[in-house]
Structures are given as C-alpha cells and as structure tokens.
C-alpha cells in the first residue's frame, strides 16, 4: 500500500472530472485504476463495496468519491475527492452559459455531444465489466446482475428495491 498523497489524489480527481462528459460512471474505471491498481490504497472488494454503499444513498451517484475520500482520510479525504467534483460544474457552466447566450444557434455543442456519446457508452461499459469481474465470483453473482438488467429494462422499479433483493440474496447466503 502506498502512502496516501492527498495532493496527488486531489489533482488526479480534478483532471478526471473535467473528462467526465456523460456523467460520473465514465470515470469509474480510471478511479479504480488509480486507487486499486496503481496506488493500492483500496482492495478490489473495498472499492466495490464503497461504490455500492454510495449508490444506496440519496443524491447524485457521484457521491461514491466522497465516501472513498472519507474512508481513506476522513474530512481531508472528503475535501480532496469532493471539491474537484465541483470545479468543472462551476467554471465551465459559467463559460458555456456565456457562449450559449452569445451564439444561441451554434452547433458545436451538439456536435461535441454527438461525437463523445459513443466514447461515453464504451466507458460506462468498461465500468460495468470491471465491477462485475470484481464482485461476481460465480454464476450466482452473474444471475443477480442479469436479473437486475432485465428488471431495469422491462419494469420501472425503484433501484432501491433491487438493492433490497441483492442484500437479501447475500444475507441468505446465495452469493
């Protein structure tokens, strides 16, 4: 395990959030790479557990970075992982809002979005496979994962119910 470098963590997250076009799931693989593989600050299982816990909390999905920060270094860790999340939102919103008012019919926004959309999808797919490989040890884990996919695509359940099903399956020893 590396010594925790909070400044390095802060700057890494800052760069990542500027790349997170398409939402927090797109930077999940790189956060995993940085924390688990490159610096060994968390184990694979801890990373997956902290991510999952935060999904059950209210608010934006991105809050898993705050939880990881707390786990690593308490309040300082929260600051090092959460403040970077706010920086692009605040600075770029100002810039883009300004451009949007000046050039209301500009198509560059639409082109950027359409161009980056496939990359977003590839990155979220990478997140899903990393998490699947980490948490599913045999066919029973994959069964829960694919059951979740089927329910989400066919019904409009609140995801909390699905987490309840997963927790129950775990408690009774299914996985």
């Amino acid at each position: 395990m590396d010594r925790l470098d909070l400044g390095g963590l802060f700057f890494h997250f800052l760069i990542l959030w500027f790349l997170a076009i398409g939402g927090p799931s797109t930077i999940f693989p790189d956060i995993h790479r940085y924390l688990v593989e490159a610096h060994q600050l968390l184990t694979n299982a801890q990373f997956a557990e902290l991510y999952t816990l935060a999904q059950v909390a209210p608010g934006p999905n991105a809050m898993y970075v705050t939880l990881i920060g707390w786990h690593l270094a308490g309040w300082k860790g929260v600051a090092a992982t959460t403040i970077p999340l706010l920086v692009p939102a605040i600075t770029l919103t100002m810039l883009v809002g300004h451009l949007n008012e000046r050039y209301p019919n500009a198509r560059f926004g639409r082109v950027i979005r359409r161009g980056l959309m496939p990359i977003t999808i590839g990155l979220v797919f990478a997140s899903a496979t990393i998490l699947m490989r980490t948490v599913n040890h045999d066919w029973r884990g994959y069964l829960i994962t694919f059951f979740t996919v089927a329910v989400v695509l066919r019904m409009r359940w609140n995801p909390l119910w699905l987490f309840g099903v997963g927790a129950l399956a775990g408690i009774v020893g299914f996985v």
Partner: protein
Amino acid sequence: MKRTDSEKPCVSRLALFLAFSRISLSSFGGAIFWTRRELIERQRWLTDREFVEVFTLGQLLPGPNVLNLTVIVGHRFAGWTGALAAVAGFLGWPCLVVIGMGILYQHYGALPQVQQMLTGMSSVAAGLLLATVIKLATVLPRTWWPWLFGALAFVGVGIMRWPLLWVMGALGPLAVFAAWKEQD
C-alpha cells in the same frame, strides 16, 4: 397554472437551498425525475421548455448532469451566491449521509453478514451500470464509426487499463471530428 417563458420569478437564496435539499434527499437512483417535479410543478421556477434547455446545457458539461443544472438554476435566479446556496442544498445532505455510511462501514464492514449483504448489492450495482449502457446504446446511429469509437474506449480503459486522460485525448478529438464531418 404554469408560467410563460418571459417572466422570471424572484427566488431567494434560502428558497434555492431548501428546494435543492428536497430534490437531493428524495432522489434515490437518479435525481432528474425529482428535479423536474420540484422546479416545474412545485415551485414553478422554470417552464418545460426552459427546463429542457437547462438540462441539455448540463449534459454538455462534464460531471453529474444534475449538479450542473443546480449551478445553472441557482446562478440564474440569485447570482453566484444563489448557485452556492443551491449546491449546498444539493450536495450537503448526501455528503453527510455517505459520511455516516463511511463511519458504519469502518465499524461493521468486516462482519461476515455485512460482507455478504454488500456482495449481493454490488452484483445489483453492476447490473444497473450494464442496463445504463444498453439504454444508451439504443440511441446510437446505425453507422460504423460510433461503434468503433465506443469499442476503442472500452478496450483502452476497460481492458488495457490505460489512463483515461490518454484515451480521451486520443479518441475525443477524432470522434468529434467524425460527428462534425457527418453533419455536412
């Protein structure tokens, strides 16, 4: 009765803080539904059309869409301090909740029952991500280039485990260029 686009209601910073607190505390598994409901139906700060505009702008920017939307709405009604009040409401409570979870995890995370429960829940979390990918992929155009860029991003980041900055730096400009050429 809904407002028309032209008038802009007067909104205090406290009202922004409270409205975004309510959105954040009721949004389990995706905030967009609650945001719409609060801003259009309950508070009537935005019309449907304004909401779509603000939301699209938020999607264009990196980071959580609804956080970007929070900044835009707060700023529109009460300037920079309004944006801060809205963000404090939107992120403050979830921050406290996950810290509470972090404390519990440190105390009880190693218990076998808790471990099993979290494993089952993590399988669900993986399924939610996979379902998101499938939903997103259905809107891709049926031409070859988006699928190629998607596959390259997946391989570079998910399999080769290269840093995202390199992969985005290489693929991003090419993908935007491809989208731009296609428009002409």
